[in-house]
């Protein structure tokens, strides 16, 4: 038991994590490409034209994965934040701040693709639907997190402050989600409503799953790349950084 904890803390040290991340990144990029190509192939060439929506529905293959990732990344971020606040491990804070921009990107993509889908399907770029609204608020939460961290010079303080915010946010997300949902269903009346095909064709499901995997791998790869940069920025005066190959050369 004790051993396991020590092991974890070993990986949680930036010094061991930095080269490890460096080794993992290419693999994740390869997986991203693999799943991405397969997913796009199914999405564009295998999945048939939708009877109701025509070709426009093909946005689904990036819209849904982006939406999922945007929510999932916030959870992971809050997890790292809690870990950092509780155990004072340096790496956790860095992970949280490395994840935030990717999460914001996913939230933005979800909004963007949703809006581009909404125009042909519903005739409007935006409706104040529960799901849309809570995605918008999630985007604001990400932006708040990033703005807070970038406004603080001392990285240790930035990490801790960000952690408090992420935790407060994660408590609030379900509350926000359900309140928005209830708000919307209480006063119906929007002239448009979501028209979703009840049973998605098997191929579509596969395409979506593959694309979701690709997004997932992408998120891991890019946030690992970013965390490496952050480690270098933060650990400048630590001796091990000076001994790195890329620094000495």
């Amino acid at each position, binding site marked *: 038991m004790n051993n396991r904890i020590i092991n974890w803390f070993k990986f949680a040290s930036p010094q061991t994590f930095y080269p490890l991340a460096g080794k993992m990144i290419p693999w994740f990029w390869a997986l991203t490409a693999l799943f991405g190509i397969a997913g796009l192939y199914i999405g564009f060439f295998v999945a048939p034209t939708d009877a109701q929506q025509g070709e426009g529905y093909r946005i689904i293959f990036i819209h849904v994965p982006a939406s999922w990732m945007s929510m999932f990344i916030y959870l992971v971020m809050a997890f790292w934040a809690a870990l950092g606040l509780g155990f004072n491990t340096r790496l956790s804070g860095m992970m949280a701040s490395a994840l935030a921009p990717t999460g914001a990107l996913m939230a933005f993509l979800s909004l963007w693709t949703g809006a581009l889908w909404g125009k042909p399907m519903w005739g409007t770029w935006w409706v104040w639907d529960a799901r849309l609204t809570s995605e918008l608020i999630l985007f604001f939460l990400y932006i708040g997190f990033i703005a807070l961290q970038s406004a603080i010079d001392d990285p240790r303080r930035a990490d801790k402050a960000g952690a408090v915010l992420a935790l407060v946010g994660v408590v609030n997300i379900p509350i926000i989600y359900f309140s928005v949902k209830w708000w919307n269903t209480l006063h119906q009346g929007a002239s448009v409503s979501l028209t979703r095909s009840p049973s998605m064709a098997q191929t579509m499901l596969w395409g979506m799953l593959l694309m979701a995997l690709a997004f997932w791998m992408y998120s891991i790869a890019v946030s690992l790349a970013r965390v490496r*940069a952050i480690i270098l920025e933060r650990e400048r005066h630590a001796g091990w950084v000076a001994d790195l190959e890329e*620094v000495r050369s």
Partner: protein
Amino acid sequence: MNWGSASEFFAMGGHALYVWGSYGACALLMAVEPILARKRRSQALIELKRELRANQDSQDETTS
């Protein structure tokens, strides 16, 4: 195979703007983000090296 020709493929059944707008933004952002991450790292490396050199210089100064 859904598409008779390349132009049909690009027309996306009249929804080209929306579909390619989505995929284009997605591709663009996902291309830019890793580049930014990499740039951030190389920037950190440059600064690190500069700092190390500065330290070396000041050490030389004190020893000489």
